[in-house]
């Protein structure tokens, strides 16, 4: 192979065709609220860990939907489970359980 000093750049595009429905269904079976996020961002706004490091449940949900579960896991690693997000979620999502469930389901390889 020839090295040209440049090469193909990995795509940052979301490819919904890669969405893992099985895993998502597994997530839904333990936390059905995973479906009802409306991306308002309240959780991220109040996040205790978010003061120190980039972390966002809203974004993690997006990443799950957008077939980027590893990014979701990465985002949620900073969570301290303090529960502020569950207090402010307008849809009453059990955010702490959602976070743990995502971690549980998607860290299984």
């Amino acid at each position, binding site marked *: *192979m*020839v*090295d040209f*000093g*440049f*090469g*193909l750049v990995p795509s940052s595009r979301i490819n919904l065709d890669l969405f893992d429905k099985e895993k998502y269904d597994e997530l839904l079976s333990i936390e059905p609220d995973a479906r009802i996020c409306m991306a308002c961002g309240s959780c991220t706004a109040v996040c205790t860990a978010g003061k120190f490091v980039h972390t966002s449940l809203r974004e993690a949900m997006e990443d799950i939907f957008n077939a980027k579960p590893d990014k979701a896991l990465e985002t949620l690693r900073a969570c301290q489970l303090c529960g502020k997000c569950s207090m402010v979620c307008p849809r009453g999502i059990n955010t702490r359980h959602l976070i743990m469930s995502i971690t549980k389901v998607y860290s299984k390889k």
Partner: protein
Amino acid sequence: MIYEGKQKIWSDYQKDIPDDHYFYVRSCIRQSFFPASEATFLDITRNRLGKDIFETEHHTTCGGIAYHSDTIPQETVMTIIARQFALMAKNGYENYVCSCITSFGLYCETMETWREFPELEAKIRENLWKSCKLEFVKPKFLIHASDLIYKYRNQIAAQAVRKLVNVHTGEPLKVVEHIGCHYSKMFPSKGVGGAEYPYVLVGMIEAWGGEIVDYPERRHCCGFGFRQYFIKGNRGYSLSNTHKKFESMEPFKPDLIITNCPGCPYFLDRWQYVIAESTGKTYGQDGHGIPALTYEEVAGLVMGYDPWDLGLQTHQVGVEPLLDKMGVEYDPAKKYLGKGGKDLGMPFPCSCLK
């Protein structure tokens, strides 16, 4: 795919193309990339179709590359263009034909800008006068050279010695058309067939017997993108763009790509080599690439020009499988012989791309 739907759109995007007396301006880069294309164009229009095409050695670049690379201001570019228009008027022409899509886009942009901002036009007029003591007249018709071939596609077909057909199977060749972004994406009404389903090359393919391939990423840029290519650090993006297009057209197994822009055939051609050499992937049959030709080269092929006179040896992707399919006779030994039998030298052999 519903063909009638497309026809309806094509009928909405027709443009007036004058019958004769054209002022022709060349492309800066095509002359070095695919040098025979413009010569073939002039030969076909002048000698085969009997049209009056005038060109002058005084015309220059339109400034497009510098403009799109953010190195010269718009007023400078407009003044250069105004000078070209002045040359046209000076020589008694009013139908402006350009060989380059970048130029075509820029001329359109300039004319539209002047229409919206007449004070700018006045200023350019002044600039041109100050700098060259010239006065310009805006062309009555601004057309791209491919528009002209499109207009005469049926006459060319009538004179053709062969069609875009696989002579071994009798099946039409599957042809991908690629339109330069600046042909109609900026001003859909300025291109034949508009921006979403441009017809300019499709018309030629249909007239010459080929079958059009409509693949998902057909609207995507070839990857030139000016700054994406000029700066080495960005070149990966240029390559990735091209790669995306090939990945998308691959399932359709195209035999040929026709383009109408200076950069596109170059990048669709050369990047196939880079993709092959850096990843091992090829898109044609049996390790070959997909030939990416200019519309003049294709017109020349169907009209029976010798492939080496058309400069097909200057393509990175070998055209032999295509020539074989079309039943074009050629002498492989003469591939790298220039005018008068002068040896052009063999390119360095590729390891992946046949």
